[in-house]
C-alpha cells in the first residue's frame, strides 16, 4: 500500500497547482463567473495545454493514459479552487461515456477534440420526475432511417449551455422506470431540434434546460445503457469525492486561519475550547473523507457492477456527511463574515452543498446501500 504520488503524478499536481494559484484567485473566479459564459475560455485552453483534458483517455485514442488516481488528483485541485470550467462534465462524464461506450472510430473522431479543448460535452439525464433515479427516463428515442431521433426534455444539465455535444439518456423500450431499455445517445448541440436555455446554479457553475424536439442523434452509445451509465457515474462519484476533499480542506484551513486572527474577549477565538473541539471534529471529517476518496478511486474501477455500486453508495454517504458538516461549521465558526458574498468561505459551502447532492444525496445513497445489504456480510 502506498498513498504517495509517483513522479509523473507529482509533476501533474505541481503544474496544476501553479496554474490555479496564478489564475484562480478568488477575484479571478468572480470575474470568470460574471462573464457571459460563466467560466474562462482562457483557463480552459491552459488546461488543454497542460494535458488535463486528454488525461484519462488511452494513448491510442490521443490521450495520456491517466487512471482513477490521476482524475482524483485533478478533481481535488479543482475543488481547492472551486473552478467553474466544464472539466467535470466534459472530461469525467463526457470522457467516461467516450471511453466506456464509444466505438474506436468515434473515439478517434472526438477524443483529440476533447483533449485539445475544442469539444465540450454535457451529460443530459435529469428529468422533472426522476430526482436521483437515473433509470427513470421519459424522454424517448426512436429509430428513423439508419439513425435515432430524440424527443424529450432534460433539466439541470451541467454546462449544457456551452456544450458542443450532449450525451442523452432516452428510452428505447420499456416503461418509464424500467432499468432495461434506457438508451444512451450522443447528440450534437447544433442539431436541429436541440434548444438549450442556460442559467447559473447556486454554486456558480452553469447549467441548462435542454429540449430535444425530434433531434437526430449522431450516434448511439448503447441501446440498453444503464450499465454504461452506472459505470460512468461511479467514476464521476469518485471525482466528486476528490473535489469535495479539496474544497473541504481549503475551507477548513481558512476557518483555522480566521480562528487564529479574530479576537474577541481579548483573545483569539481559536483559544476557546468549544471552538477548538469543533475544529477538531472538522479535521476528523476531512481526514475520513480523504481516506474515503482514495477508496472511491480504487472502487470505481471494479468491473463487478453490484459490488462497485455498493462501494460508491458508501462513498457518497461518507463524503456527503463530511461536506455538509465541514461546510456548515466553517460558516458557524467564522460567524457573520462568512455570510457575506465577498468572503470566500460561503462559496465553498455552496459548492460543497451542491456536491453533496450531485448524483444522489446522502439519504438517497444510504437507503440504496441499506437496501443492497450494506458492506459487511452477515456471519
Amino acid at each position, binding site marked *: *500500500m502506498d498513498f504517495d504520488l509517483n513522479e509523473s503524478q507529482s509533476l501533474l499536481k505541481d503544474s496544476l497547482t501553479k496554474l490555479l494559484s496564478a489564475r484562480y484567485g478568488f477575484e479571478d473566479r468572480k470575474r470568470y463567473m460574471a462573464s457571459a459564459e460563466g467560466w474562462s475560455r482562457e483557463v480552459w485552453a491552459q488546461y488543454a495545454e497542460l494535458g488535463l483534458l486528454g488525461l484519462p483517455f488511452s494513448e491510442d485514442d490521443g490521450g495520456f493514459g491517466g487512471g482513477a488516481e490521476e482524475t482524483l488528483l485533478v478533481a481535488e485541485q479543482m475543488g481547492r479552487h472551486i473552478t467553474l470550467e466544464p472539466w467535470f462534465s466534459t472530461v469525467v462524464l463526457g470522457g467516461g461515456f467516450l471511453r466506456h461506450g464509444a466505438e474506436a472510430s468515434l473515439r478517434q473522431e472526438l477524443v483529440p477534440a476533447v483533449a485539445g479543448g475544442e469539444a465540450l460535452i454535457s451529460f443530459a439525464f435529469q428529468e422533472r420526475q426522476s430526482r436521483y433515479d437515473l433509470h427513470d427516463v421519459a424522454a424517448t428515442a426512436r429509430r428513423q432511417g439508419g439513425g435515432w431521433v430524440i424527443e424529450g426534455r432534460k433539466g439541470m444539465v451541467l454546462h449544457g449551455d456551452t456544450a458542443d455535444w450532449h450525451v442523452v439518456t432516452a428510452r428505447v423500450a420499456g416503461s418509464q422506470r424500467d432499468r432495461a431499455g434506457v438508451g444512451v445517445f450522443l447528440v450534437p448541440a447544433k442539431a436541429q431540434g436541440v434548444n438549450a436555455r442556460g442559467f447559473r446554479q447556486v454554486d456558480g457553475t452553469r447549467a441548462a434546460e435542454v429540449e430535444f424536439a425530434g433531434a437526430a442523434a449522431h450516434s448511439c452509445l448503447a441501446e440498453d445503457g444503464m450499465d454504461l451509465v452506472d459505470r460512468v457515474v461511479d467514476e464521476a462519484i469518485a471525482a466528486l469525492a476528490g473535489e469535495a476533499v479539496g474544497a473541504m480542506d481549503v475551507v477548513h484551513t481558512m476557518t483555522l486561519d480566521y*480562528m487564529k486572527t479574530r479576537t474577541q474577549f481579548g483573545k483569539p477565538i481559536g483559544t476557546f475550547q468549544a*471552538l477548538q473541539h469543533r475544529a477538531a471534529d472538522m479535521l476528523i471529517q476531512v481526514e475520513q473523507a480523504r481516506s474515503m476518496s482514495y477508496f472511491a478511486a480504487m472502487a470505481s474501477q471494479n468491473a463487478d457492477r453490484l459490488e462497485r455500486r455498493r462501494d460508491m453508495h458508501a462513498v457518497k*454517504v461518507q463524503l456527503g456527511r463530511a461536506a455538509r458538516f465541514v461546510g456548515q461549521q466553517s460558516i458557524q465558526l467564522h460567524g457573520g463574515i462568512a455570510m457575506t458574498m465577498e468572503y470566500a468561505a460561503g462559496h465553498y459551502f455552496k459548492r460543497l452543498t451542491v456536491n453533496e447532492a450531485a448524483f444522489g444525496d446522502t439519504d438517497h445513497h*444510504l437507503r440504496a446501500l441499506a437496501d443492497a445489504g450494506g458492506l*459487511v*456480510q452477515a456471519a
Partner: protein
Amino acid sequence: MELRFSDAERAFRQEVRDFLAAELPAATREHMLRGKGPTKEMVVEWQRKLNAKGWATPEWPVEWGGPGWTPAQKYIFREELQMWPAPQPLAFNVNMCGPVVIEFGTEAQKKRFLPRMANLDDWWCQGFSEPGAGSDLAGLKTRAVRDGDHYVINGQKTWTTLAQHADWIFVLARTNPEAKKQEGISFFLVDMKTPGITVRPIVTIEGGHEVNEVFFDDVRVPAENLVGEENKGWDCAKFLLGNERFGQARVGASRERIRRLKTIARETYDNGRPLIEDPEFRRQMTEMEVELKALEMTVMRVIANETKRAGTGKPDPATSVLKIKGTEIQQGVSELLMKAAGPYAWVDGDPDAEGVNEWEVAPDWAFGLAGIYFNWRKQSIYGGSNEIQRNIMAKAFLGL
C-alpha cells in the same frame, strides 16, 4: 499510489487464518463470539502458543523476539485476531511495558523481564491513573522516596485493569515533588507480591470486575527496578502512550460485531417481520458500516505512512482520528446490538453461570448485550478521553 494489499500480504493473512484455525481452542472462540472478554486462562494459553510461533510480540525488534513484520503485517495480524475472534497478545506486556523496557531499560532489565513478558509468565498491569490524576495524568501524587538501594512507594492507583490477575505492575510515581509536574516523575517495575500492596476490586456498572484500585503502603522496590533515569519517567509515559497508533481503531473487532448484528437482526422480529427489513434499523446499521469503511482506509493511510517514514515524518493527523472514530463506532455498534435484542437485553448476569438461563428467559445470544453497551461507554473515556484527543488535535495539528 497503490491502494491494495500486495500478494505477499494476502498470503500472510491466509497464514494467520490457518494458524488460528489450527491452534485457537474452539471454546475460546465460542466464548468470545458471545462478546465476552477471554478468561485469564484463555489469554495465557493462547499467548504461549503465539510465543512458540514467534508471534506474541509483533511490535518488538527482532533482537528481542519480534517477528520483524511490516506495519501492514502487524495490522493484518491484529485484524484477523479481532475478526476470528481470538485474544490479542496481552497489551500491558507486549504493547505497553515491553516497548518501554526495550527503549529505556538496562540490559539486565531486558534479559530479566522481556522473555517472561512475551511468554506471559508474568502478567503485567498499568499503574498510571490516580483518583486525582485522570486526564491530567502528570498531576499524579503517588510518591517514591529513595532509601538506600530501594525506593519506598506510597500512594494509590486506580482503574488498574486486570490487576487481580497481575504478577507485576509498572508504576509512575513522583520522585521530585519540587520540580515542574512532568519533571519529577519516575517509572518503576513493581512485583505485586511485595508487602504493602493491596488490590481492591471496582465493579463497573454492568457488574463486571475488570478494574481495581491498587494501594501502596510503604512498598519497598529495589532501585534496579527503576526504568530510565530518575525523574525522567514522563518520557517513558509519553513514549508508551504514543505507541498506540492504531490499536484503538479496532476495525476487525467492529466488523465482527456488525456481522453478528446482521445475524441477530435476521432472527429478531419487529412489527411482524425480521428486524433487518426495518428501514430505520437498517439505515442505522449501514451508517456504521460506512463509517467503518472510512476508518479502515484511514488506518491504511497511517500504516502506509509508517512504512514509508517509520517515525521520521511529522505526525500524521489521520492518527488522531483513529481513537475517536474507532471508539465511536464500537460504541455505536454495541448500542445497535442491544437495540436488536430488545427487552431480552435486560436479563442481568452470565448465561453460562449455573441456573441463570435455566428457564430460557432469553435467547442465549441476547445475554450480556446491554452489559457490553454499558461497559463500552469506557472506550471514549480511557486512553486519553475523546475530549483530550480533541485538545491534542487542536494543539498538534490545528495550531490553535
